[in-house]
């Protein structure tokens, strides 16, 4: 694997693809709304079948806590909730804003990803965070996700 494979822009690709952005925003909004009213929405395939939480498990509820202003509970549930929310806001802004206005933001994001590898760092960090919770907290982590 080359450095380019890990430092290739991913977030900028999502920001540029307005159709993908629209679907991601819609799905996220639907998931958050369903979860807010205690209705069944998207279930994690890993947790559903194996009972083991995946790296993204707890993000929906953590984001809801964050939207309510409960930072402490949000970070206990999932430390990546603020990053997820920022990403979601960025995708929404780039999807609904005129194309010529967001092009500069997309180009800056692309160069940031390419030169700093921030996406790779964040995604690797999420895997490490998940492994730490899974190995160190074990049953407490599963209980937290089960609710």
């Amino acid at each position, binding site marked *: 694997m080359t450095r380019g494979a890990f430092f290739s822009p*991913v977030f900028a690709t999502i920001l540029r693809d307005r159709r993908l952005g629209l679907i991601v925003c819609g799905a996220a909004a639907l998931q958050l709304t369903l979860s807010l009213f205690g209705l069944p929405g998207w279930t994690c395939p890993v947790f559903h*079948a194996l009972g083991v939480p995946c790296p993204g498990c707890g993000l929906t509820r953590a984001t809801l806590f964050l939207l309510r202003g409960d930072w402490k509970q949000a970070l206990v549930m999932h430390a990546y909730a603020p990053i997820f929310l920022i990403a979601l806001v960025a995708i929404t802004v780039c999807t609904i804003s005129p194309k010529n206005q967001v092009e500069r933001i997309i180009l800056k994001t692309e160069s940031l990803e390419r030169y700093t590898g921030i996406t790779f760092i964040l995604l690797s960090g999420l895997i490490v965070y998940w492994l730490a919770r899974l190995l160190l907290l074990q049953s407490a982590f599963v209980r937290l996700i089960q609710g």
Partner: protein
Amino acid sequence: MLQILSTVVGIGCIICWIIVVIKMFQDAGVLHGILGIICGLYAFIWGWMNGGRLGLKNIMMIWSLLIIINLVLGFVGGFRIPYITPSATP
């Protein structure tokens, strides 16, 4: 009975998800693949968007059907089936 059915549906979902994630690694790159592992919903959306091009349409149909069955089971079981309670969302 519902629990067994729910587990079977869950295993079906995980197989479809693995197939899509493998395609993500092959077609979109390492980081998209990791994103697909982290967020199953993203893998699902990506699968539908690229299903026609990559020959994933049948897999996506099956996965969607399993999700619908999962939701129906959730309603029938009164949200009390393990791992499909509302709190077990990602």
